[in-house]
């Protein structure tokens, strides 16, 4: 009986008695969710355009952030380092298309998937050789990202909003909105969607697959850079960031691999869900439940929508 009370009653009593903590939890969940969405977006972009599940997306986050900080540490001014990092990510996209995707055209999806495993290890090795394995402090101040917190007195307590989290939420939202506009309203976006629908049909109307692949890998690289900056500023820049990127997996399960809105909504559901779960129900299970709770949330949704929230329903004739 006591257990039932702790599961079904006590959390809601806590929400009522300390509403400031509820708001704080929702805010933390929202910020994490937006960042998860950003990581998931990198996966979705590449999957839509090339049908490849890019296992290297996580290490791209690390590589982009390390490049930025590494260049700054070598004396390059912060904003020039940022611009050069963008150029590096473009170079990476071109190399991936030339050396990895082009020779593997028409190979089964699993071959391309395995190739992204290889890319992961290449980027880990390259990153360690060039920048070393030492952790680096993100150049948040130099990029004029705000520090400190705004403490809002409300609901009989206070809610602490970290300025870096506010910036992360705004920048991530702008990026997501920007990508959505590019996809919907521009010529290149329409080409991307055409490739996503059918490679052959896209080729038949003169769309260059090679060009599209470079564009999506570059876009995924920019998303990785933004994620690396934001997450790096919340902790530090190290190879451990790659693990955080795995948080995108339950988001993708939930949102579907082909849906940009799915990545966004999925990210927020996972982010808010895991923080609420950790805060109100975590102590019942010994705390530290976030790492698996995200998958539980995704699986519950899948029971009702196997194709994910916004994923395409695949109907195959047998």
């Amino acid at each position, binding site marked *: 009986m006591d257990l039932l009370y702790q599961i079904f009653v006590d959390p809601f009593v806590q929400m009522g008695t*300390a509403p400031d*903590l509820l708001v*704080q*939890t929702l805010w*933390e969940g929202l*910020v*994490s969710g937006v960042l998860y969405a950003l990581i998931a977006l990198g996966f979705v972009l590449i999957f839509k355009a090339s049908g490849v599940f890019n296992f290297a997306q996580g290490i791209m986050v690390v590589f982009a952030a390390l490049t930025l900080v590494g260049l700054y540490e070598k004396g390059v001014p912060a904003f020039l380092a940022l611009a050069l990092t963008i150029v590096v990510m473009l170079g990476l996209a071109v190399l991936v298309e030339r050396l990895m995707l082009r020779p593997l055209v028409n190979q089964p999806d699993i071959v391309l998937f395995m190739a992204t495993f290889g890319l992961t290890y290449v980027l*880990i090795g390259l990153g*360690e050789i060039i920048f*070393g*394995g*030492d*952790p680096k*402090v993100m150049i948040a101040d130099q990029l004029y990202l705000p*520090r400190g*917190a705004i403490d809002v007195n409300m609901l009989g307590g206070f809610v*602490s909003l*970290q300025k870096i989290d506010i910036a992360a939420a705004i920048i991530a939202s702008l990026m997501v909105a920007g990508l959505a506009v590019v996809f919907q309203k521009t010529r290149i976006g329409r080409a991307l969607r055409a490739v996503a629908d059918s490679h052959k049909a896209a080729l038949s109307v003169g769309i260059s697959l090679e060009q599209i692949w470079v564009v999506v890998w570059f876009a995924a690289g920019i998303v990785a850079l933004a994620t690396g900056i934001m*997450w790096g500023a*919340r*902790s*530090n820049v*190290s*190879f*451990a*960031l*790659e*693990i*955080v990127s*795995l*948080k995108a997996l339950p988001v993708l399960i939930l949102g579907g691999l082909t849906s940009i809105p799915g990545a966004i909504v999925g990210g927020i559901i996972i982010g808010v869900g*895991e*923080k609420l779960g*950790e*805060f109100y129900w*975590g*102590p019942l299970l*010994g*705390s*530290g439940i*976030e*790492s698996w709770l995200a998958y539980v949330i995704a699986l519950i949704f899948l029971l009702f929508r196997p194709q994910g929230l916004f994923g395409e329903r695949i109907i195959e004739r047998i």
Partner: protein
Amino acid sequence: MRMKQLALGVALAGIMAAPALAQNSIFVPLLTYRTGPFSNSGIPIANGMHDYLAMLNERDGGIGGVKLAIEECETGYKNEKGVECYEALKSKKPVVVNPYSTGITLALIPKASVDHIPILSMAYGLSASAQGQDFPWIFNPPATYWDGLSMIIKYIADKEGGLANLKGKTIGYIYFDGGYGLEPIPLLDQLAKDYGFTVKKYPVPPADMQNQSGLWLNVRRDRPAWMIMWGWGAMNPTAVQEAAKINYPMDHMIGVWWSGSEDDARPAGAGGKGYLSLNFNSVGANYPAIQDIQKYVIDKGNSQTAKDKVGDNFYNRGVMNSVIIAEAIRNAQQLTGKKEVNAEDLRRGFETLKITPERWKELGLEGFAGPVNVTCTDHNGHHAAYVQQWDGTKWVKVSDWITPMKDKVQPLLDAAAQDYVTKNQPWPKRTEACDKSS
């Protein structure tokens, strides 16, 4: 004909060189992790361990005239990779293995006990392995995790006005959710029972080392009077930043000695000021031996250490690890009269290891660490540690040396060692004799 001669020459040279290398060196492998999510902690330790041994080779021609063959094996802090390294290195007849991971140590304890290779897990690993009678091949000086935890509780009690004042208080324990972080929990639960405080546990899964905001909201709600941290790798700087984020009083947050590198506190900026951690070695490069490392190894380009990292806490921790190895080798040479000692000799060297303050001075490391005293029955020594505080730019010593609560730790250690032996039957009975000087 020429090709034949050349091939023969190369083959002969190989045959002659191989035993020469084997006979004229003592093989000291180092299991390290310079890559992966734990490299921020692993790199400075690996550098310190390597550089001190390399310095002995360069400055003194090794130990007792025998060079040390140093070989690193990258584990990435992964247990399976650590075991793989151990198996690969075993055939080269190492005199000691340093796992540098509690998880790897736990995996190697049964193997090393059969293979008769000493394992040095300096202030980490299985606390119960301090019992020399049950674990003749495992050494974990200068203090066990349980000693460390009891020292932290003593420090907290001192600040609260005595152990009796802990009654009714809540103490939070945030820990790496693996072998390392789980290790001190039995003692923590026991001390909570003995002194009447409540423990709130906050496990950090490896996948969420950089994603702790949810856990720290729990801390904000629970308002523990003190927070104890058993973190490693990327978990540490994230925890310090999250604590600062919820305005947790940093001078009430204290990490074990593995949660106290400069890179753990620095990323939090001003927010990290006041953070405390245990330590058993000094910080700084102002020691003759470390100057020698600079001169003989780093300046010659034979090290991976950045010059500004020499003297950092974890760099010095690595140096201390290698001092213990080197002194045990020296000890073994004196005991056996042999120059090229083997694993069995080194076990005896460890069991009679005594590094007095005078010896630290002779080594060019006066005041670098407390005395180390290992015996046949006590493979740890249960030595003291001190508390250091981050002042925003560097660590500052803020306490005297704190001795562990031996009366609390020892009975639990005895019981845990017995329990380990019972659960791992058939556990090899100790047949090795104790040296007189031990």
